[in-house]
């Protein structure tokens, strides 16, 4: 059963920001944005979260839509996981995000859950975050005082802690579509194939020029308090041709970069093992993709 709360459904962004800023100028923990509600409603019911008022974002036209121009991809905060799967251009604009959407929850949740809500929910197992990190995505935050852009890589500060101020909304998420000679992959390891919480999620990006890796991104989910990049592992790869030995070294480094815990789903030991195995596999696949026929 829920504790009681109010619900408002503002018609535009300004109204929403006004309401969020209501109590106490810089926002109030008791006033929360409601997107798809697939985290929030569950948390409210379990009383993990308390709220006085929910600000439903469903009627705000400005938060909708997916745009692609000049190689830049922008999705509104209202974009759902199903929107990602439905958009035929996404397979090229964000291959790893499409991979993650396919293994994300079940249909009904995908139909309502937003990518922005996934980013804001603060879970280290949030499935769209490794892909978005591997794409160097940027988050746009809007508040009464204006908007600011924050690289996703700087967005997460600690467990359940992020850059967003309580009276701000994420309005969009943007990234550059992958370059032609690059590969971008995601794999979710879970205890079940359908509708399961991630045990380890790995996203990689590998871009190549003249036989050398120019950009390497490795993002790891569910193995640290926040989703994070394995920067030391990435550093091993950039500027190099990815030999099996180098890939193995980077995969080992990625496992070392992670700091997983034991829980009901898996042990820390197994998680680290899997980071190693999956990073190696995804990097090999990515390298094969970008060097094939080239």
């Amino acid at each position: 059963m829920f504790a009681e709360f109010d619900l408002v459904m503002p018609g535009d962004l300004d109204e929403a920001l006004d309401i969020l800023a209501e109590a106490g100028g810089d926002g109030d923990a008791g006033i929360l944005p409601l997107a798809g509600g697939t985290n929030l409603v569950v948390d409210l019911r379990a009383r993990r979260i308390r709220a006085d008022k929910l600000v439903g974002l469903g009627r705000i036209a400005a938060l909708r839509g997916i745009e692609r121009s000049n190689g830049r991809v922008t999705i509104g905060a209202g974009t759902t996981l199903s929107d990602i799967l439905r958009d035929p251009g996404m397979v090229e604009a964000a291959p790893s995000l499409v991979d993650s959407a396919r293994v994300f929850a079940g249909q009904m949740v995908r139909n309502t859950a937003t990518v922005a809500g996934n980013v804001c929910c603060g879970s280290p197992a949030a499935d769209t975050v490794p892909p978005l990190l591997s794409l160097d995505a940027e988050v746009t935050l809007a508040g009464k005082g204006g908007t600011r852009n924050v690289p996703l890589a700087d967005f997460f500060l600690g467990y359940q802690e992020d850059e967003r101020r309580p009276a701000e909304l994420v309005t969009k998420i943007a990234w550059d579509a992958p370059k032609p000679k690059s590969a971008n992959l995601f794999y979710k390891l879970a205890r079940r194939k359908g509708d399961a919480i991630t045990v380890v999620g790995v996203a990689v990006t590998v871009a190549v020029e003249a036989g050398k890796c120019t950009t390497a991104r490795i993002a790891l989910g569910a193995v640290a308090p926040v989703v994070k990049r394995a920067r030391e592992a990435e550093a091993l790869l950039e500027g190099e041709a990815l030999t099996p030995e180098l890939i193995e070294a980077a995969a080992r480094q990625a496992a070392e970069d992670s700091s997983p815990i034991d829980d009901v789903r898996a042990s820390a030991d197994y998680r680290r093992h899997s980071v190693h195995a999956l990073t190696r596999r995804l990097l090999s696949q990515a390298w094969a993709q970008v060097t094939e026929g080239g």
Partner: protein
Amino acid sequence: MRETETITLEINGRRREIAAPPNQTLLETLREHGYFEVKSGCEKGDCGACAVLVDGEAVDSCLTLTGTLEGRAITTVAGLKRGEELHPLQAAFVKLGSIQCGYCTPGLIMAAQSLLNETPDPGEEDIRLALSGNLCRCTGYTKVFDAVQEAAQVLREEESGL
């Protein structure tokens, strides 16, 4: 008590004014108003028994606050029926033995309908993906896949016959 708002919903083709407190889910609202075909299996999005269509798209009614739905069209499994006739999805589930205890059936049929609204000719992978949020403990899903495929064909034939 927080203020109870009156919401206008179209449920199974009928306009209804419904008073719902802000913390009420669509599952609670629908069952309170006699739509017992909407089932509760977990109330946290894990099972899909409560799935209904909102403007043609399946959602878990247990995760949807009624107050967010002003003016939207809701369809439950009972609203699929065409007069006295079963809808092709319902008919295929009956014919192919895809129903055992039947508790998951309303949700499964709504998830399948949501798929067919967008993808009239789904492959088996599409069907699995579309039904992955609906737990069924009795059937093992095989006959459910068959029913969705058969219904899709019937609906395509109806469509092209028009």
